[in-house]
Structure formats: C-alpha cells, structure tokens
C-alpha cells in the first residue's frame, strides 16, 4: 500500500541525541492511524520569530511577470529549493498591537494588547482552529517555544502568542521530552489517573455552589482543563489497541532525552521533528512554535562571523556597541557589517525552516500527497524593520498547499497595506472554520489561490 511506503524510521531521524524507552512500557497513547477519517486533512503551523528583519531582505531577487518566484535573494537562499512551495506577500501589517511587547501577544489575535488587564483582545487564530477541531485529535493544539535566554524570559506578553480566551494565554512547552510524553503517554499512568480524576470531579462540582459567580468562572477553567484531559484519555483508549498492534511504529518510537539540547540548531530541529511527528500521527493539527520570545537577547555567535545578541543586532543603525541595547563587549566596524550579521541570524532561521519543509515534503500521506502539500505553515513575526520597530512590512511567508487550496510559488505584491489578520482568516477557513473576520481584519485574504 502506497500510504505505508514512507519510512517511519525517517520520522525520527532528526531526533538527535535520543534515549530509547523500554518498549514494553510505552504503549503509545495515540499515533497516526490510516483508519481515522480525518487523517490527511489540512495541518496548520505558525512559526513565530522576534526582532524583525533588516528592511528589504524579505523580497525576492527575481520574479516573473505574474509574480512567480524565480530567484530568492541571498538572505532567503536556504529556501531556494522550496520556492515553488511558498508564498511571500509584501506590505503586510497589523494596524494595532505592535513592537516587542504588544506585537507578540497580538500576532495571532489581530487586536491591541492591554498589559494591565493581561488581555490580547481576542482568541488567537490557532486557538480558534483548535477549538473547532478539538474532538478530532488527541491534543487540540500544541504550543511550543524555545527556552528563553536573558532578560524578559519570564515576561508574559513576550512569551504569549496563543490565547484560548482574550485574557488567557496558553502555556508553552519548551522541553522535547515533555512534548513527546504528551503525545505518547504510558498506558498505566493513563489508567490510574482516570480513577483518580473520576473521583475528584464529582467532589469538585459541589464547589461551584459555594463560590461566588466571579469565582465560578475561574472554576470553569478547571473543569475545562479536566474535560480536555478526559477527551484525550478517551481518545487514547480508542486508539491504544490499534496502536499496540502497529509494531512498525512502536518498534521505532524513540523518546528524546529529558532536558534541553545545548546546541541551538539541534534544539530547534528536534522541536521541528516533534511538530512533524505530531502532524504525521495526527496527535494534533494545529501547532504554534515560538522560535524565541518576543525580545530575544540570544547570542548567535555559533554562526560564523556573527557577534552580539539578536536584539542588539536588530538595532543595526548604531554599530558603536555602546548603546543601551548592547552587551558592552561587542562592537561592529560599520552599520553595514552589523546589518549583515542581523540578516545572517534571519538567514539561519530560514535554514531551519528549510529543514522543516524538506522533511515535510518527503513524507507521503495516505492520499498520495506530501505532508507539506496538506499543510499550511505561516512563518513570520510582528516587527518589520527591527531598527525602527516597524509595524508594517512584516516578514511573512506561507509554505504548503493547504491540501490544494493554495497556489504557491509566488511573490504577491500589494500596493496597499494588507492586514495580517486577513491572512489568518484565510488560513482558518482552510481548516474548516466558518469565520469571516479577526481583530482588525474584516475580510479573508483572497489571493492565496
């Protein structure tokens, strides 16, 4: 059968430093099942990156008469092999909620951010889709992030792009092993937890009678969390027998080691491998991955010729190394040199995205198409030119064909500013969500096909 031809071993090839779990203990709670009616449907991923880009490096070098991508520029060159799989829209902006602080929490809500009230204005696009699909997958969605470094690592707005309610950000997972365990938990713990959960629920319900109206809303949060877990357990129970028999998968399933890989590239790629595993196994169909928090000060010194922290580099117009954003030990010869290093960091991220696209393109789905064909990956961030905290010309790139609903391979030039929210709406619609507007965007973006 054609759908079985992809190598499951390949799924986990990139998993790097891994530790095999004792196989008898691991009965996957759930994994890819060709029997599932929804398998092979659209997947949606958002890859967020902070700190913007140097102006101009998001435009292709050469395009055809109707915008076909002929040659990408040098800073996007890692994506050259995938220029037929991507769309680059120009002149994208968000009318509200911009900068490191407000632009991060509102990247997927399209509203403004109220820091005092901890309110992103609305539910984020990924969570709207997650709610819509929640009964169809093991996990309604996955929220991933790299572990923060430096200042602002525990700043709420800079670490929150997914909102299940306007005032409720989703917790983000940073440890590969934890993510793996959430998808493939051990059978025994699921069972004993079930007993305990059942017993606590009835008791907990009595509480709603005691507390005030306001507090009972908070209690709803508790019940909602429990219900999500219950759904997940039911799901895994339905699937566990089937999975136990799927020796091909159980024999090769390898859990990543606990902890955070020291090498940043291995770390990012391991997270991407887990994204693919989640999509492939239909553990979820919506994933957000923050490649870093909204004002990352990470050092990219592991890239040859790059010095200084990411955020410092983003303010490339001052190369003295003596500004408030600098680390005091790095300086640059010229603005041009600093700008190039900044662009290098962006290019490094393109390289990682290329890794993801490459793997997804080489995974065949039951319907004969590639995983990439059946996916939509929005890669971008909430700042245009980093030096100026530009709210327009936001770096935005869409990969995949959305199951044939998107016609990629194009640069789409906009003479007028295009609301990022309208693109969110268009993608949500392709996930089957009946929705017409998001945040400031009143319509769906129409030029994807």
């Amino acid at each position, binding site marked *: 059968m054609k759908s079985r031809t992809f190598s499951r071993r390949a799924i986990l090839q990139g998993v790097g430093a891994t530790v095999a779990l004792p196989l008898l203990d691991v009965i996957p709670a759930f994994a890819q099942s060709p029997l599932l009616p929804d398998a092979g449907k659209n997947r949606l991923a958002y890859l967020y990156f902070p700190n913007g880009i140097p102006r101009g490096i998001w435009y292709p070098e050469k395009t055809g008469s109707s915008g076909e991508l002929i040659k990408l520029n040098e800073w996007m060159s890692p994506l050259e092999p995938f220029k037929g799989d991507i769309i680059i829209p120009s002149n994208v902006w968000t009318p509200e909620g*911009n900068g490191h602080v407000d632009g991060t929490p509102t990247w997927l809500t399209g509203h*403004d951010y109220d*820091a*005092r*009230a*901890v309110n992103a204005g609305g539910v984020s696009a990924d969570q709207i889709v997650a709610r819509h699909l929640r009964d169809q997958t093991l996990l309604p969605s996955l*929220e991933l992030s790299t572990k*923060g470094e*430096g*200042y602002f*690592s*525990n*700043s*709420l707005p800079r*670490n929150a792009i997914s909102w299940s309610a306007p005032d*409720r*950000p989703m*917790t983000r*997972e*940073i440890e590969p092993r934890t993510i793996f365990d*959430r998808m493939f938990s051990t059978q025994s*713990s699921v069972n*004993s*937890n079930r*007993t*305990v*959960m059942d*017993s*606590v629920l009835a*008791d*907990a319900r*009595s*509480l709603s009678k*005691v*507390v*005030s*109206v*306001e*507090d*009972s809303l*908070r*209690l709803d949060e*508790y019940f*909602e*969390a*429990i219900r*999500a*877990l219950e759904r997940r357990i039911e799901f895994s129970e339905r699937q566990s027998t089937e999975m136990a028999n799927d020796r091909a998968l159980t024999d090769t399933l390898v859990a990543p080691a606990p902890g955070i890989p020291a090498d940043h590239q291995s770390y990012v790629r391991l997270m991407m491998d887990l994204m693919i595993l989640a999509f492939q196994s239909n553990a979820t169909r919506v994933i957000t991955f923050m490649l870093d928090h909204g004002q990352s000060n990470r050092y990219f010194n592991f890239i040859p010729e790059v010095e200084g922290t990411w955020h410092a580099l983003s303010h490339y*117009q*001052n190369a*003295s190394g*003596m500004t*408030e*954003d*600098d*680390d*005091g*030990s790095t300086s640059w010869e010229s603005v041009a040199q600093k700008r190039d290093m900044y662009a290098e960091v962006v290019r490094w991220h393109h390289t990682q995205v290329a890794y993801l696209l490459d793997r997804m393109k080489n995974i065949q789905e039951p319907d004969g198409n590639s995983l990439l064909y059946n996916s939509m990956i929005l890669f971008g961030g909430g700042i245009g030119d980093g*030096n100026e*905290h530009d709210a327009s010309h936001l770096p935005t790139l869409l990969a995949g064909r959305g199951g044939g609903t998107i016609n990629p391979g194009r640069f789409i030039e906009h003479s007028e500013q295009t609301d990022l929210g309208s693109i969110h709406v268009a993608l949500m619609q392709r996930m089957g969500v009946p929705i017409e507007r998001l945040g400031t965007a009143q319509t769906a973006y129409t030029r994807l096909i």
Partner: protein
Amino acid sequence: MIGAKNSNKVKLQLFVVTVLLMSGIGARGQEAEVVHELEPLLAKNCAACHGPETQTAGINLTSLIREAPLVKNLETWRRVISALEVGKMPPPGAPQPTVAARARMLDLLRNDIENFDFSTIDNPGFELMRRLTHTEYDNTIRDLFGVRLDVTERFPVELIGNSGFENSSNTLFLQSSLMERYIGAAQTIVDLALPAEPITAAHFRTRELIYTKIPDSIVSEKEASEIVLSNFLSQAYRRPLIDEELLAATQQFTLARSNGLSYESSIKQVIQAALISPKFLLRVESGRESLVSYQINEWELASRLSYFLWATMPDRELFDLAAEGRLSDPIVMEQQVSRMLRDEKANTLGDVFAAQWLGFHNVGTRIWLDPIDNPWCTDSLMTAMRDETSMFFMSLVRDNLPIRTLIDADFTYVNEELATTLYNIEGVVGDHMRRIEVSDSNRGGILGHASILALTSNYTTTSPVKRGVYVLDTILGTPPPEPPPNVGVLSQELQEMREMSFREKVEMHSSNEYCRGCHSRIDPIGFSMENFSFFGQWRDTYDFRVRVDSEEEADESIVINTESSPEPVTIHFKTTKRRISSQGSLPDGEVFDGPSGLKQALLKDRYEDLVRQVVSRMLSYSLGRQLEYYDEPAVRSIIAALEENEFSFQTLIQKVVASYPFRYKKNLHREIH
C-alpha cells in the same frame, strides 16, 4: 430575633452607603466642571491620535474623560500628566497647545486627581480565586507531607505580567497542560512521600504526619481511615470538611479497599485525588450574595495570612485559632503576625516578595555572565548576591527597622566569595552568609548591593539609563513615560559620555528634543552610581583598554595563536584611566555627588514616594492582584499609621493585614461606590 437583627444590619449598611454617596455629591459637582473644561482642551490637542478615530497606544481620551471619577483610570491619567509635563505629548512636529493651555490641562488633571475625596469610596475589591503559584504549591506539599519534594521543577515557567508578582490572579492560568502536570505530580508525591516500604527517616516522618491513626484490634479500619482522611483533607483544603466531603472520601477509600487495594494504598488513592482537587489547587474563598462588602471568614483569613507571610498553607496554630473564631481578633492577629515573622518560613518575604519586587530573583538565571569568559561569575556568587538582598530585607522586617533603612543602612550580609570578589572586603572567611558592619556610606542599602547593580546593568557595562529608570520606577513608583514605540535605538554613546562633564552629559540628548524631556530626568540618577561597575565593584576610574601598535606604547602584551598566521602573534594593549565624575541629580532636584549623595537626596526629597511604593508593592503582593484606584484609602491609611510609628517595617506588615482590602471583599459585578 435573628431575622430582625439582620435586616437592621442591612438597613444600617445601606444607610452608610447612602451617606457616603451623598457626601460625594459636592466632589461630583466639581468634577463635572473639570470634565466640562477639559473635554474641549483634550479634543483640540489630543483627540487626533487619542480619540474615537485613532487610539494610539490604545488610549482614547475622548471616552476616558467621560468615565467619572477620573481616578478610576488613575494610571492612564498619570501617564497623560507626565507626558504633558515633560513635553512628550503632543509629539514634536504635531501642533502644540499654548503654554497656558498646557498648564491649564495639567492643573485641571492634577487637581482632580490629587484632590479627589477617596473617603467617598467603599470598595475593598475582589480577589479572584487563583491557583497556587509553583512556589506556593511546593511549600504547601512540603508542609502537608513534611518533606521537600519540589515537583514543580519541570512545570512550565511562571510568567509575570504587570503586577510584577507571580502570585497575581490575572496571570495564574489553569490550562490542561498544567492540569496534566498536577495529575502527574500527585502520583509522584504519594509515591515518593509514602512508599509501601518506608526506608529513610523522612519516610517515617511523613507516615507519622499522614497516618495519624493506625487500625488495630480496638480501632477499626473504617474509624482509622476517617480520622486519617479528615485530618489530611481539612489541611489540604485549608478549612474544616463538610460532612458530604468526608463521606465521599470514605466511600472512595472503601471502594478502593473492596477493589483489592491495601489499607495504605486506598488511603493514598484518596490523597492523590485530593491533590488534584480544585479545593487544594485553588485558593478558594466562599462567595456571598451581597450588595455590600463583607468580611472574609476565619479560615480564609488564615490562608491569606500564611500565603502572604509564608507563601504556604497555615500551620496548626493558625488553624486552631480559626476554629476557635479568634484569629480575626485584632490583638490575636497582631500576635500571630509577630510569631509568623519570627518563623523561618517568613523568609519568603525576602526570597519571593522582595526578590520579585526588586527583580533580583533574576540574578543567576536571566542575569548572568558566561563563566568561561568570566570565571569569577560562579553559581555560588550569584546565590550569595541574591541571599544578600533577601537576608538584608528580612532583617529590616525582623528587626523592625524604618523603611529608610532600605536605602541607607550600616550593615549587610556577605560570605567570603561575595566579600572578596565584588566588595573588596577582607577578613570574611567561609561560605556562610553573615551580617557585617558597613562603614562605607556609598555601599549600605540596596542601591549598593551587587544584585541590584548587576540587574540594572547591560551585560558587562553599566547603564545610567537603566539605573535611573530603576530608581524612579521600581524604588519610587514614579515611572518615567514609556519611550515612544518607534524611537529606535537610544543613540547614547557611552564611550563619549565618559569623557563628558556632568552638564554635557545631562544635555547629551539635546540634539533630540524628543528624548531630552525624559532622559534629563532619568540619566543623572544613573550618573551618580557610575562608581559601581556592572556587578557592583567600586571603581574610581573608567579603564579603557585599547590595542596599540608597538610594544613601547603598551602596558600589556599577549601572545596568541591564530588560524590566519602560522606564527604566534603578539598583541599590545594600553590602558588609559579616566576619573569618574559621579555628580547626579533627581528630577527637579539639586546636584549631589555619588551614591551617598543620591541616597541622602532620595531620603530627603523623595521619602514619601519611597514609602508609598513600599506600601503599594506589599499590599499588592498580599492581595495577589494589582492595586486599583479604590485601594487608595487603604494605602493612605497605612501610610498614616507608618508616619506615627517611625515607618517601621512591622507596622507596615501589621497594617497591611489589618487593612480593609485584606480582610474584606466585595463582589465584582455589583460595584457601587
């Protein structure tokens, strides 16, 4: 007759409310006039960007001015005032109001806000039910089981919002991914703390705490289990059980037992369930159908006290007093607070409250240097830096010192590593932190602590801007306006600055009028702290180490191997020194010299702000929420009490727990004032 009594009480309360409302009428009338005059001024000068059409920074002054009283949006109006004051708004390039119009707007706003009659407000606020923070969870588990397990280590990190504290109800979310952690943790805890075969002393200690009754020939399993479970659950839920709860628990026990589990395993299963119950995970306070504010009950008070002062559950003594209905007695509560502050558990006021307020919880994690390049930057040094400030803060509390001591003190806490690495103090031997005298008038007080000086620096350079903002915002509670969103990098050339006189430095931003308004108020504070290097070492000079061409010019030469040349290369360096000028000033204040001058100026000119900030931060932490305009009467009454009691820290804490918002609450959806 009870019914009649109650209705009298309600009438009395309604009467009080009516009187309060009436007494507010005079002020209301005045306010209407203010609004009437302000509206056209705002419409003319501000509404283009902050009106119904466009709401830059989310601020719509056209609608805000109609929300009476103005103090309701105190924070925004304060921002408006300071933006008008420093000339940040309207932005340069936009049409400017006349000098008179600007002054008039400021007058009207300031008057209305400063002279608002807060006695017309009767609202203790409402603390939304919130989950335990990871710290509170770990501590509570420690107290329930008598053993520290720290199971939250791999939980998702707690994020901090505007309140600045992890315990803020609007940032403590309960998502299913966290629920999964709680469920896993509950199992881990019973497995680790109560193994079937106890081995260690801790195991036996936990068993004694949990198995308070053992079934034997006299006591049946049923009786024993009821005693054990009732004891555990009432502690875990931090209140007495109701009959149904105990019944449900014993039924669960019996079911487990009949399913073939052992006696102990059956008990453990009930305990495990309790650990994921919202009654344990959330800080539950009972609601009341009420139009007016009501006092929280004894058990709730016990929890508020213990989570505030200890970041953990109440102990036996607090529970006993609550059961006797005596805890809310002012004298008893005062005694309890004194007792609790003496307890080691109160160290969380330093490790959690002070650390999160002052930001030094980040030292060693977010604030840190690569030990390969900086071998002195060890984990133990980072710990000592945090401990210094934390222990210092606790001694202010335990020794009941005045608030001013925070800024100016003649003692601190160090160990050998901290003393020698950063403070150049000799004669301190050993790893343990101990109290020492500080005779250097520049060093004593938190502004001379390495932790604070490091967290207000940029990696390996000092930042007068950060330090200035820190003093104005964190210490005094008077933050300068936010920098405009698209200002780009602050092109402050520190190198140049170090060559400048004080006057030149202050005027450095004069080329950019936009920056000068604020930075002429911020930077001079930081200038006065320049003798403290980026990790707080004292220095008299800036040392510039530059490469020079020849050995003759150099005072240091090093030989290195490079990839580009086959031979080792010699590089020459020369260090030049420049004396630091440490003159500084507070906004609108006189020029002073050095950290010592800064401290004296702060205590002389800004003591009121400092006191208000300490009060506000502590009240906010104690309530687990941001303060609102209606908390102002409480803040003022605490400040008044401090004025009569030498501003002592224990007075502060006693008055916080005695305050109206700490002991009362009022339902959110029926706000009347």
